[in-house]
């Protein structure tokens, strides 16, 4: 059977999801094809979870325009989509004289990017704002709109809202070919069904070069740039209240320390180019280099308080730079490449940009009058007042059944995560939606219960419950 649609979006990472949601405002049929078992992408779910201002982008580039434009959009977006977000601001401390001398240049660049709220602060002011900073700080820059977000919820929310507005999602489905005819897109061949379509938007991130190759537009290569991170316990002795960024060098933007939106501390990332697009391992050397570098900024940081380490792969483009491409000789094909560390931020402006470009190129999409703007998030029992908790349990007793002890996540929340649109099918998908297993015991306590709940709710055997993608089975069978 052949599916039919107007637009196929390849990839349900931040950019693909934002593009799909933007398209769902129009009377156009959209299918998102995602190779993973869950929405959320690859790079979009393992990054520093920062919404940037674009102060340090290369002025005049598309990346600069889109990041700078995206930042202010988040105030309304996170309200509409119920996404945890906080404008905590970033500090860029100069520890050495050499770094101090670089500050004017960095500030000038911010201004060129139209980020005019960057301010100089003295060392004393910075230490008042952030007492755990290196006491040798000479001064630095304050970038008030640098913000933190829950990156998982952002992408889920974009997808759920797109889904509510009619977008179809094909998960666990990989694109294997794109057929064209007479310089036009004809169909997308997948590991599932083939999809006849007018448009294809390549938001495949790490794999966007492989998709481009299918239509003969492989003018670049994606090089995976690994970033390793530590997440520290919420109780770690040395904490920061702002994003603390190092002064960038020519080689790297460097390793930062910041709170996550849920109150952990995050340190990292490394920047290691590698051939593999799947190797997301951490290494002793990488973790050591994070420790060493972050200690320059925040000497008291205690990485022994780590509760998890992970790495993400940024889809770095060679040649570098964020690119939006359409070709006259390939009607209906849009290629996005070079979406890197600013990708999470610029996903929402990219969504608008892509649709605008399509409209400019003759796509006759019309705005719907029944677009549902808001998405309902999952109630967070742990963040409710005692009175609210009492009311929740009265209404639904499963709110009284705490499954995850570290993050105080209840069975009702887990059931919501499973049964909502594009609901969780795996242990990690539950974790990303409600944080069960995200705390200091990393699922030691709730893991077995989550497997049981998933199996029960999905009506399958526990052996069919995966950690995430196919092959990541959690258990092997029953006991003797």
């Amino acid at each position, binding site marked *: 059977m052949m599916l039919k649609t107007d637009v196929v979006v390849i990839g349900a990472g931040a950019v693909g999801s934002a593009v799909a949601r933007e398209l769902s405002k129009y009377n156009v049929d959209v299918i998102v094809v995602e190779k993973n078992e869950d929405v959320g992408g690859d790079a979009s779910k393992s990054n520093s979870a920062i919404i940037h201002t674009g102060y340090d982008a290369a002025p005049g580039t598309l990346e600069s325009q889109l990041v700078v434009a995206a930042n202010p959009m988040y105030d309304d977006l996170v309200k509409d989509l119920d996404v945890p977000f906080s404008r905590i601001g970033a500090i860029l401390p100069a520890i050495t004289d050499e770094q101090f001398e670089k500050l004017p240049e960095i500030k000038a660049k911010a201004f060129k990017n139209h980020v005019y709220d960057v301010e100089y602060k003295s060392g004393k002011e910075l230490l008042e704002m952030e007492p755990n900073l290196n006491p040798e700080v000479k001064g630095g820059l304050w970038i008030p709109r640098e913000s933190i977000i829950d990156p998982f919820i952002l992408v889920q929310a974009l997808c759920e809202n797109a889904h509510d507005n009619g977008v179809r999602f094909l998960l666990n489905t990989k694109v294997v070919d794109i057929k064209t005819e007479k310089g036009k897109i004809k169909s997308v061949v997948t590991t599932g069904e083939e999809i006849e379509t007018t448009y294809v938007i390549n938001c495949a991130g790490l794999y966007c070069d492989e998709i481009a190759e299918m239509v003969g537009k492989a003018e670049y290569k994606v090089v995976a740039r690994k970033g390793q991170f530590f997440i520290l316990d919420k109780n770690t002795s040395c904490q920061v209240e702002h994003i603390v960024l190092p002064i960038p060098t020519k080689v790297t933007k460097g390793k930062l320390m910041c709170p996550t939106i849920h109150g952990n501390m995050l340190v990292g990332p490394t920047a290691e180019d590698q051939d593999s697009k799947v190797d997301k391992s951490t290494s002793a050397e990488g973790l050591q280099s994070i420790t060493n570098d972050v200690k320059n900024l925040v000497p008291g940081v205690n990485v022994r308080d780590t509760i998890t380490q992970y790495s993400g792969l940024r889809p770095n483009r060679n040649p570098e730079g964020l690119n939006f491409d359409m070709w006259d000789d390939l009607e209906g094909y849009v290629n996005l490449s070079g979406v890197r560390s600013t990708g999470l931020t610029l996903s929402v402006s990219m969504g608008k940009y892509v649709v605008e470009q399509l409209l400019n190129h003759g796509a006759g999409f019309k705005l719907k009058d029944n677009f549902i703007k808001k998405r309902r998030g999952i109630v967070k029992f742990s963040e409710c007042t005692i009175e609210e908790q009492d009311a929740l*349990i009265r209404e639904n007793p499963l709110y009284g059944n*705490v499954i995850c002890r570290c993050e105080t996540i209840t069975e009702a929340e887990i059931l919501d995560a499973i049964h909502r649109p594009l609901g969780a099918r795996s242990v990690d998908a539950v974790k990303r939606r409600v944080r069960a297993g995200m705390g200091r015991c990393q699922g030691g306590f709730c893991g077995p219960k989550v497997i049981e709940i998933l199996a029960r709710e999905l009506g399958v055997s526990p052996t069919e419950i995966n950690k995430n993608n196919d092959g*990541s089975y959690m258990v092997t069978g029953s006991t003797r």
Partner: protein
Amino acid sequence: MNKVLCDVAIIGGGPAGLAAAVAAKEEGAKKVLILERDNALGGILQQCIHPGFGLTRFGEELTGPEYYGRFVEKAKKSGVEYMLNSMVLQVNHEASEVICASSEYGLTAVKAGSIVLAMGCRERTRAGIMVPGTRPAGLYTAGSAQRLINRQNIMVGKKVVILGSGDIGMIMARRMTLEGAKVVMVVELMDYLAGLTRNRVQCLDDFGIPLKLAHTITRIEGNERVTGVWVAPVDEKKQPLSDKAEFVECDTVLFSVGLLPENELTRKAGIKINPVTNGPEVNQYMQTSAPSVFACGNVVHVNDLVDNVSEESATAGKYAAQYAMGKLQGEQKTVNCVTGRNVRYLCPHKVDANQKNGKVTLYFRVLHPEEGVRLVAKCGGDIIASHKEFRVNPGEMNHITIETDKITSDSVTVEVEKAGE
């Protein structure tokens, strides 16, 4: 909100909570209420279906369920009340109140004369020891695997490497083998066993499972499910010799790398925590820095024998009952317990020297193994207690009993001396 009044509220219905409850009743407390988050009493012992419990206390070898079964029976007989499926969300010691959530009872505020913390401990994870590599399925703490196997009848894997020679790790090596899995090896960072010697004999040697001392896992491989681990010897500084690393194929890794007292509630309540034990600081009454709050069992310090937990918890229950009945109100003269040579920590951390004819057992762990030693408690230069031990090691808890009447200064120091010194 549901409101409940009681004399002694006990958080946790595992071995510690049960023993405290029984003792509180015996001491004369009228209403003793256990708040348990699980669907049954017994705590972690529910999944400890192996024997080895009760040798000290009952003089016979019991399984976990048999051991706690005796306490549950006693508790029920003496009229201890309990709420199951009830997770305590906060302890408010100033109001002497505990808030808990439960599907059955709703949100409940329990007002108590005294509170006993008996939340037990949790397992240190892979992240806690920073093992690099990928993050596939098939990585379990030994206790989670034990729960899946023994309580949910679900098998977790077929070819297993176990990191850490703690008791749970060794017991799980045997359990996995009995369930048909191949346990390739148990890997231990230290050059000595972390758990009890008897477990090495009964769980590893008897099943021909190799124990690699002074080795560690340097890297985990596999993207979806574990495909194997790299195991390397370590030098004297515990640094892995990566060039000597060997790849070991497996589909499952169990981590038995230490237990940590579970003190989320304690911390939130502002009760003083000892940085070495990660548990609340207590005196010989098992009383914490909040006078109405007592603590016992693994929430205070991680024990190797449940028999000790029961004894210590009975103390907590007894004095919690006294406190609730207004009998433990006398002025205390607090003396600090100080760690001397080869002593990692002491518990209790403080002693009330005003207790008349008091006998206080100080439990402790050593820093490193030693043979032919004398355990000594000193006060103001005088030896107030001492006895010989053939061998001490960090995996097995030691103790020394002192008499409060002999305390003459503001501290008691315990140390391990070379015998004959």
